[in-house]
Every structure is written in C-alpha cells, then in structure tokens.
C-alpha cells in the first residue's frame, strides 16, 4: 500500500520568510501528486497538482512544488509567506494502478503558523 510522509508536523515562520514543506511517498508506480490547504474551520482547497510533464508545478497564492521522481518527493515551496498562509497543509498521492479511481492517500499534515 502506498503511504505519504510529511516531514514537519508544525512549522512556525515569520512573515516574508521562505517556506519549504517536505513530502515523500512510497509508491513506485505512476502517481498523481497534490498539495491541499485547509484554513481553520474550512474544507480542503487544492493548491496545486502534478500529473505529468514539467516537474516544477506552479499553483495558486504563489505556491509551487517540485516533483523529483528519483527521490519520491514532492516538496511545496513559497518564496515569501504571509500571515494569511497560516493553515494546515496536506500532501496527497493517487496511484494510477487502479485506473486512478481509488482515491487519495494523504500525509498527516503540516500545521503552518506565520507570525506577523
């Protein structure tokens, strides 16, 4: 079974700092990769996704992620964070072995706090 590991459970940064959240997955086949954000009390919103092609993916709100196949990694980055980026961030993987229909496997999440 596939698994997803997020390296940091809690991250605290100051505004304007650079952000990198780590994500590794265990599945060896073809995968789709996702980062979701969850603001307090809200549902998950898609930040970005990787299906194929350019391994550097740009998403909403200035986020980007890089897929490194040899490292089974899909790290999320943002060059300068804002207070409004305070949220929970989830990395997720979908393997294509079942035709892609069998849902996402999530990491346990990273709680990001941005201090003004």
């Amino acid at each position, binding site marked *: 079974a596939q698994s997803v590991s997020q390296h940091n459970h809690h991250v605290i940064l100051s505004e304007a700092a650079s952000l990198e959240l780590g994500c590794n997955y265990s599945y060896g086949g073809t995968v789709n990769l*996702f980062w979701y954000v969850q603001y307090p009390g809200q*549902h*998950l919103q*898609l930040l970005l996704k990787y299906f194929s092609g350019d391994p550097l993916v740009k998403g909403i709100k200035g986020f980007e992620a890089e897929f490194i196949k040899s490292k089974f990694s899909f790290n999320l980055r943002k060059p300068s964070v804002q207070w409004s980026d305070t949220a929970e961030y989830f990395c*997720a993987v979908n393997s294509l072995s079942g035709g892609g*229909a069998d849902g*996402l496997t*999530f990491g*346990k999440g990273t709680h990001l706090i941005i201090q003004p």
Partner: protein
Amino acid sequence: DAGITQSPRHKVTETGTPVTLRCHQTENHRYMYWYRQDPGHGLRLIHYSYGVKDTDKGEVSDGYSVSRSKTEDFLLTLESATSSQTSVYFCAIRDGTGGDLGGYTFGSGTRLTVV
C-alpha cells in the same frame, strides 16, 4: 466549485444509534469518496464509489457502509455509532472521466460527535 453539498453540517448522536451522512453533487461526476479527518492522522479514505451501485472499501471502512443508488448521491452510514467515530467527515468527487481524470474537490464537511 464542483457543487458538492454535505448534510448535515453538524450532528451529535448517542452511542449505538445509526447515523447517515449525505453527499450530493450536481455535476454528474462518476467518482465519489468519503474521508474522515482526525488530528494527527490527516484524512483517511473510508469508502469510495466508481458508479451507481459500484462501491469499494478504503483504508478505514470497518463500522461504515455506503450506498449510491443515484449518480448524484453518496450516502455514508454508521450502523451503530461509537465514540471512536467522532470525527469530521468529508465527501469528495474526482473531476473528469476515463483517461482524462482531474483533481479532487472536497465538500465542506460534517462534524459528527458521538456521545
């Protein structure tokens, strides 16, 4: 927005009672999913559906059943609720069809408390 509505938004129920949560979509998506979210665990897949009357188990399916009699509705039932099923439940759909599957869109969640 993919037009996903979850009901109820909040529910408190007693141990041992049956509970049904509803997920309704308006855009005829084939694939639908139920997840639960718990602190320290992220989201875990309970059951999913790949068509009317076609469902399969996810990672944490024990104690849950699902039904999909219409494309637009995916029901999650706790036959006899337990305190360990206190959680936030999210429904999701997957955009696209066939070889052109897209991303996943989540509903607003149902907060269930079993007392």
